[in-house]
């Protein structure tokens, strides 16, 4: 029972990380109508900036700020220089352009910082484990990730539901032309939304830096799963992104933990393990296909 609880906690933690990436992606997707494959690159930029700052200063706070600032700044520059020209284009042009950006950023990092993965330490205050439930010890750092993720979710809720900017964002997602007609500086709004999305991606990069390997190509590893989350949740819906992310995190973790064991009861050990791992990998995509077949617009469509 304790094991199951721990696995569920793991699922939530993975989900929260995915949420930070998916929240930005779904806003950009829903409001500007842009498919941004380079979202993973912003996550990578955040992780790298934090890693470099941490090794230069040794301060976790400086690393956090550097990661957020770098991701947001790069995001806004990319929006200003490239994406702005693509809003009126179809999705295919956006795919090609942002794919070009991925190549550019990956190789740019290699040129700047080399190919070796970088080392990031867990901040001193967040080391060790904590007893979250009787019999379940859990790393403090992962608890912190869950907490930060949920705080961000709350913050986004307040921002979008309770402020003027949020009202424009909501309106932008459903009635783009209307917002423009009201005389709102849509360009500025777009740049800000994109910057916010980049900031969240950067935050995910900074926070996962100490538990993953900070290396070139880390953005693409997680990009596809992020798209899965966005589509399951419903494009443009931050609430959907949160539910989708936690659902994907839970399904992925639970399948990995239990499918091979179940298969081993009916077939030979090594075959069961190999097949089980394959089935677990497919699980998330199967989930997405099922959701889309039942609810073609995702679980929480931004506009019904």
């Amino acid at each position: 029972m304790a094991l199951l609880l721990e696995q569920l906690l793991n699922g939530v933690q993975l989900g929260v990380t995915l949420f930070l990436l998916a929240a930005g992606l779904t806003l950009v997707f829903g409001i500007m109508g842009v498919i941004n494959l380079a979202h993973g690159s912003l996550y990578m930029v955040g992780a790298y900036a934090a890693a470099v700052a941490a090794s230069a200063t040794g301060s976790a706070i400086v690393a956090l700020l550097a990661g957020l600032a770098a991701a947001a700044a790069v995001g806004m520059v990319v929006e200003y220089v490239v994406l702005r020209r693509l809003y009126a284009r179809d999705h295919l042009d956006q795919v090609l352009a942002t794919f070009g950006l991925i190549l550019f950023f990956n190789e740019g990092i290699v040129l700047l910082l080399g190919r070796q993965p970088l080392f990031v330490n867990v901040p001193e205050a967040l080391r060790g484990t904590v007893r979250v439930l009787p019999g379940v010890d859990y790393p403090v750092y992962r608890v912190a990730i869950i907490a930060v993720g949920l705080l961000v979710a709350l913050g986004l809720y307040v921002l979008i539901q309770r402020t003027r900017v949020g009202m424009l964002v909501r309106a932008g997602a459903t009635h783009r032309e209307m917002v423009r007609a009201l005389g709102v500086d849509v360009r500025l709004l777009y740049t800000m939304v994109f910057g916010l999305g980049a900031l969240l991606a950067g935050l995910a990069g900074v926070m996962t830096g100490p538990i993953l390997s900070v290396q070139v190509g880390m953005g693409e590893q997680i990009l596809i799963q992020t798209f899965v989350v966005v589509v399951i949740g419903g494009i443009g819906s931050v609430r959907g992104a949160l539910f989708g992310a936690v659902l994907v995190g839970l399904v992925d973790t639970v399948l990995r933990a239990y499918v091979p064991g179940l298969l081993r009861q009916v077939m030979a050990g090594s075959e069961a393990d190999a097949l089980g791992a394959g089935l677990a990998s497919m699980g998330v995509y199967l989930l997405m296909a099922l959701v889309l077949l039942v609810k073609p617009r995702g679980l929480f469509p931004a506009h019904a």
Partner: protein
Amino acid sequence: MRNLLRDERAWVVALLALAAFIPVLAPMLDSPATVGLATRIVIYAIAASSLNLILGHAGLVSFGHAAYFGLGGYAVGILYAHYGSGEPFLGFIPGSNSLLVTLPAAILVGGIGAAIIGALSLRTAGVQFIMITLAFAQMLYFLFVSLKAYGGDDGLAIRRVAPVLGMNLRDAATLFWLCLGLLAVWLFLMDRIARSRFGRVLAGVRQGERRMAALGVRTYFYKLVAFVIAGMGAAMAGALMVNYLRFVSPDMMAWTKSGELMIMVILGGLGTLLGPVIGAGVLVALEYTLSGITEHWQFIEGPILLLVVLFARGGLMGAVRQLAGRRAPAPEAVPAGELPPRDALPETATHG
């Protein structure tokens, strides 16, 4: 004369005829490896052109086209593996090393795969369609990665292929001409489809599916048939690729491969006959040339792709038209033009 120049088909014929001389010219230019490069381009051209049928003509953005490319490849690889071991596949299908058997088998497998995936995926539209096709491709990818019996991630080698009608496929020039011939057949088929009633229905689906439905056209059925034909084309290309590489691995059906095929189509020019061929040629040749110059080739390739999008609407075919200073042909003149500037995705179309 002007009409002839306007006709894309004339260009295709001229290009294919010129390409046929590559195996003769390459050794004279002291560059025999160009034949292999050209073979790869021709094979990708078939795959990209098959994707163009659904992407460019019907406006169905499939992000999982590499799945059929890989299925075709694995059909050849698995049949060869069973030919080598002598045990029949699934207990009753004998293995084979002859392209006359494996190529039709690959096309059949690709068609069946596309029929199943298409039947489910086409219930969605827009971005959801993009993602659901990706989802199915990823499932197949992970399935083959975990198939221990067929090499898993390491892939399968196909060492000895039987001659086809007396042609030795190990000879680079022979394989190239075979692939070029199949590309010619495929492009002819694509052209016929584009100009048929079927092709016009697909174009209608792209421009406004509801209008077509209102006219009483069963658009689902048309889309599915196009999807299956495209899957069969990709599978044929996959089978040829495996014959060229003499190797098949799940890498062939990775999502990045689907992305590459999409990029070839967009780069060349959506919905045109020649575009996917040009796109495949330029992308493969560009990577080959750049990676020969610098190990940081991606740093140059990325911005090039970006510039093409920003400044050449309609891909390279669009750029050629702009350079030639010709007005974009009217929709009637070209059976399937580019996509309208802002494609009518359901979620943007419905809230008006």
